[in-house]
């Protein structure tokens, strides 16, 4: 019987997923620092929903439950979605989004390894389209908030009856949002960025979380859980794109660093677009995929109807993956291209 190779080396799928979850911990800590501990509640809510939904679907599909729950992929989807939502979002928003991500975007397509779209981004997009008001109302960072919210207050926001009046009191337009609305009022970028919510590079407080994502991403690179192609191509093209527009008219377009350090740029670069299942597999394909997402993200941010565009860009490029893979097949040893 030939069952060679007898040796195996690779970390298992669950080890990979757990390491990615570990890489998210700095960002979670930064979240707690900037917005308070409510994010922890949301992470727990999302985790429970994801695992229950996954187990339910596996049972309905007659699949073994334990190995697939243990693989950690559902948990990762839950965390990525929770970290994309405003930290004071009502509990049902978290549950609905996570449920949709796991049931519709992942399990109905065949579960782990078979989903053509990034499940977390599907969940996010559904929520953004269905509940745009809640989804675009981010609470002000603690240091800028007029009313300091205790953890009990935060829990009230999450579990209490939804009250948009309440939400308005504590929310503050995100820099990307603010920039967009102010530009329509013909203010110059230089004037706009002097507003309170702007920090050194991106959003006040928010840039701390962005930095934490960057640290987590470097850990993923160091552990060889992702290759450099996706994050570097994404960030480089986003910076190039923003740089070109900025040089053309600095009064109407924000500088490239602002684009790199606000919104979901870093989260996207290292944790979202690097989802292997829904992304391309060839090195060249990864460059094309990431560049496409960067271009679309920038266009949506500047010309689109939403403040940020990472989620839609990822989903749009997910659709192109089979084509990208087919077109970027590497040259095989001993063959001409």
């Amino acid at each position, binding site marked *: *019987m*030939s*069952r*060679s*190779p*007898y*040796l*195996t*080396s*690779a*970390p*298992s*799928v669950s*080890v*990979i997923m757990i390491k990615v979850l570990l890489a998210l911990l700095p960002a979670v800590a930064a979240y707690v620092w900037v917005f308070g501990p409510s994010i922890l509640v949301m992470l727990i809510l999302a985790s429970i929903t994801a695992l229950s939904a996954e187990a339910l679907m596996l049972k309905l599909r007659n699949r073994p439950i334990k*190995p697939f729950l243990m*693989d950690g*992929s559902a948990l990762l989807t839950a965390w990525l979605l929770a970290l994309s939502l405003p930290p004071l979002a009502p509990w049902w928003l978290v549950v609905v989004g996570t449920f949709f991500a796991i049931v519709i975007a992942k399990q109905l397509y065949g*579960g*782990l*390894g*078979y989903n053509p779209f990034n499940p977390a981004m599907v969940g996010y997009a559904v929520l953004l389209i269905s509940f745009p008001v809640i989804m675009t109302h981010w609470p002000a960072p603690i240091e800028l908030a007029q009313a300091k919210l205790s953890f009990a207050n935060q829990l009230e926001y999450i579990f209490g009856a939804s009250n948009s009046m309440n939400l308005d009191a504590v929310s503050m337009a995100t820099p990307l949002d603010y920039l967009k609305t102010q530009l329509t009022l013909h203010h110059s970028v230089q004037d706009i960025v002097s507003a309170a919510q702007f920090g050194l590079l991106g959003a006040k407080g928010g840039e701390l979380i962005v930095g934490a994502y960057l640290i987590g991403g470097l850990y993923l690179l160091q552990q060889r859980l992702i*290759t450099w192609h996706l994050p570097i191509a994404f960030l480089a093209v986003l910076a190039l794109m923003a740089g070109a527009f900025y040089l053309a008219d600095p009064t109407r377009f924000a500088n490239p660093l602002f684009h790199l350090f606000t919104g979901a740029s870093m989260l996207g670069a290292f944790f979202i677009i690097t989802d*292997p*299942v829904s*992304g391309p*597999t*060839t090195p060249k394909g990864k460059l094309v995929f990431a560049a496409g997402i960067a271009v679309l993200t920038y266009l949506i941010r500047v010309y689109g109807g939403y403040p940020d565009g990472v989620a839609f860009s990822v989903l749009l490029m997910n659709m192109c993956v089979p084509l990208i*893979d087919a077109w970027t*097949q*590497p*040259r*095989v*040893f*001993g*063959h*001409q291209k």
Partner: protein
Amino acid sequence: MSSLFNIVKQGLGFSDAQVAVTGGVHPPEHKQESSSQPIGYLALPKRLVLPLRQHVGTLPKILVNVGDTVLKGQLLAEAEGNISAAIHAPTSGTIAAIEDALIPHPSGLPDRCLIIDVDGKDEWIAHLSLDWRTQDKTKLLESLRKSGIVGLGGAAFPTQVKLRTSARTHVNTLVINAAECEPYITCDDMLMRERAEQILRGIEVAQYLLGAKECLIGIEDNKPEAAEAMRLACASSPLNQEVTLKVIVVPTQYPSGDARQLIRLLTGIEVPADKRSTEVGLQCFNVATLLALHRYFDHGEPALSRIVTITGNVKKPANYEVLFGTPVTDLIQAAGGALAGTNDYIMGGPMMGFSLPSADVPITKAANCIIVSSPNLFAPVPPAMPCIRCARCADVCPVSLQPQELYWFSKSSNLEKAREYKLFDCIECGCCTYACPSNIPLVQYYRFAKSEIIAQDRSKEAADLARERNEFRLMRIEREKQERAVKHAQKAVGAKVEADKASTNETPISVDDPAMEAKKAAIAAAIERAKAQKKSLAPQNVSDPSPSVQAEMIEIDARREAAKIAVNEQASSQDEK
């Protein structure tokens, strides 16, 4: 990129390789265990079992009968056909039987073997060295057919075939494979440490036969002693004066010992997939093969033994010089016996080897290593998870395939697509499986898909042949019919002529012409009909790369039906006669 890599690498003194390694893996080497002892010798076994199938190619023709007394080195079976290898008696004794016995082969099936009862005298047959430098090359090659030498690196391809040169193949560079990239195996390492000079003598023979201008010896950097021994031997070799002779240390990265990979590492030349290395001026030999050449030409000794590594779950892992036909159990015994927990015996390395059907099988020419295995050594593989498209397999593939795509195509039996994605360029090195976090037995899928494609091609060929025969038969029937008709017409005309002759005198006979013309027209018509039929019978969308399995199944069924009809018709036509 690669030039920068070279500068850095060579600057640090790591490697003299021409190009950067692409892909590959570096599993724990486990070479130390078996390479701390000098090469040992086994006591003469009581019985030797010599499978006829020890090489790639046609089986040799048996020259002895049961009961014959044979001497050491005596030819027992001679090479038959172009690609074949002879078999000799590794020691003196009598032929006890010629029968099927278990052989070391992945199939685990028994095959024809010559079985020798050893008499213990180890008595040589008369054998002479060849004064090869003064002899005609064709004569030497003819003599090499009787040497029984095959590639000892594991491929077991008859060496005489590889040393033949033709107008199309001009070998400029001789690549000597001493990479020994598989973990655990140390037989080439020990051979170089102990017998480097003999290897050099073998290189001289090969260089002379091929007329190579350059001899490059490729050794992985985890064998510094062997590399040093080879360097010393090179320095004192007379060959050093005539041609470029170099030891090139390459990074330890499996599978650098694959011939095409090593050629690329040493020369920078990527042998085109559809060409043999000789067509681009290169030939590659393993060090042990070269030593066998030296023994044959300088001492007249045919291939009788080889160095085998015995390692793994045994008391004293080491290397032994083992006569072909020696039972694996003898070798295990010599190494102090298998330890508790042994559950498997692997021939070859852990990356490309295979499990033996039993430890009683003989050591053959291809047997470079026996690993006594236990679950502690090689843990059972956990159940496979779905592919998550992480492409780690693609990163480690030394031939730049996309294993994850090939896996999908193989799994869904989308064989056309698998072929299109260069399935047949897969060297089955196992790197992809080694790197897979989902524990998918990828290589197994590729082996399966390859065999399916080959089987499909064969059945298609058979069906095509049957169809052609049927068309030919229809055409023949039609032709015969036409010929009969022409004959009838001729007869009628002939009768008329006879009648005319009676009335008129000797009119010039132009009867033949219209008759011939009618015949020609009839044949043309028959050909037209056959052509039309051929069109209607043409195989349906064989090359259609439809992704669904069902389409493919329907297609195969259709072909099978066509073949069946063709065969039936043929049978019925024979019945008619």
